[in-house]
């Protein structure tokens, strides 16, 4: 099954810029379905980015983060060809991870 995680990591000089898009409903728990019943909260809680064995970014997300959540950040280090590992876990205990190559 295709990963839920899309990553674009681009190294430029001594900085790597990372953009990610993750496929996830991010249900807030405040929306009702067609039958008028509340759709229970279902959202990513933690997203972690690792490079060279070190965590370079951690996102802690609540239900107010938009569906198919996006993230952009930059860190020092990282060169073309390096691995960047991304993983997430949600409030139902589901998870996914992906290793992307820095371009």
């Amino acid at each position, binding site marked *: *099954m295709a990963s*839920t995680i899309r990553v674009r990591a681009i190294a430029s000089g001594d*900085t790597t810029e990372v953009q990610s898009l993750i496929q996830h409903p991010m249900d*807030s728990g*405040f*929306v*009702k379905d067609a039958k008028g019943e509340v759709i229970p909260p279902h959202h990513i*809680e*933690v*997203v*972690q980015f*690792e490079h060279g*064995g*070190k*965590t*370079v*970014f*951690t*996102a*802690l*997300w*609540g*239900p*107010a*983060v*938009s*569906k198919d*959540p*996006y*993230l*952009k*950040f*930059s*860190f*020092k*280090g990282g060169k073309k060809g390096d691995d960047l*590992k991304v*993983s*997430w*876990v949600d*409030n*139902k*205990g*589901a*998870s*996914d*991870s992906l290793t992307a190559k820095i371009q």
Partner: protein
Amino acid sequence: MNEFGGVPDRGRRIILKSAVAGGLVGLGFGSFPFPAFANADAKDWPADAFKQKSEADALKTLYGKSAEASDKVNLDAPEIAENGAVVPIAITSTLPNVTGIAILVLENPFTLAAAYKIPEGTQAAAASRLKMAKTTKVVAVVESGGKLYSATKEVKVTVGGCGG
């Protein structure tokens, strides 16, 4: 994607995951003597902070402090949101030694929208897309040198992001 349907014991689930990840049968994620890739860990999630309903309470619960306004925190947010379900927000800061960034949406049911941990070597910047229930003040908070600094902007929301 692993689906652990209906298993209530989170601790056990995490250990199972780490075993799968690389034979590391850990009993938690304190400090390992060797670098190990740790998957995103639900134990890191500050559940209480995400339950708070005011700026003061959210920051107290998350960081144990309150924030002072600073022009060294830059919050890029639209004046009028195209749609409250997807509002692009970008935060940057020129403050030194930034260790955390948090975004608060004051009129949302829960104030804290997102928080970011910024390790050394990572820039004091984060961009994301948030839901806003209605016209609201948005507060960007940056943790620098152990203190909190903030910038506030009002975002007008005509089509609410919580299904309304």
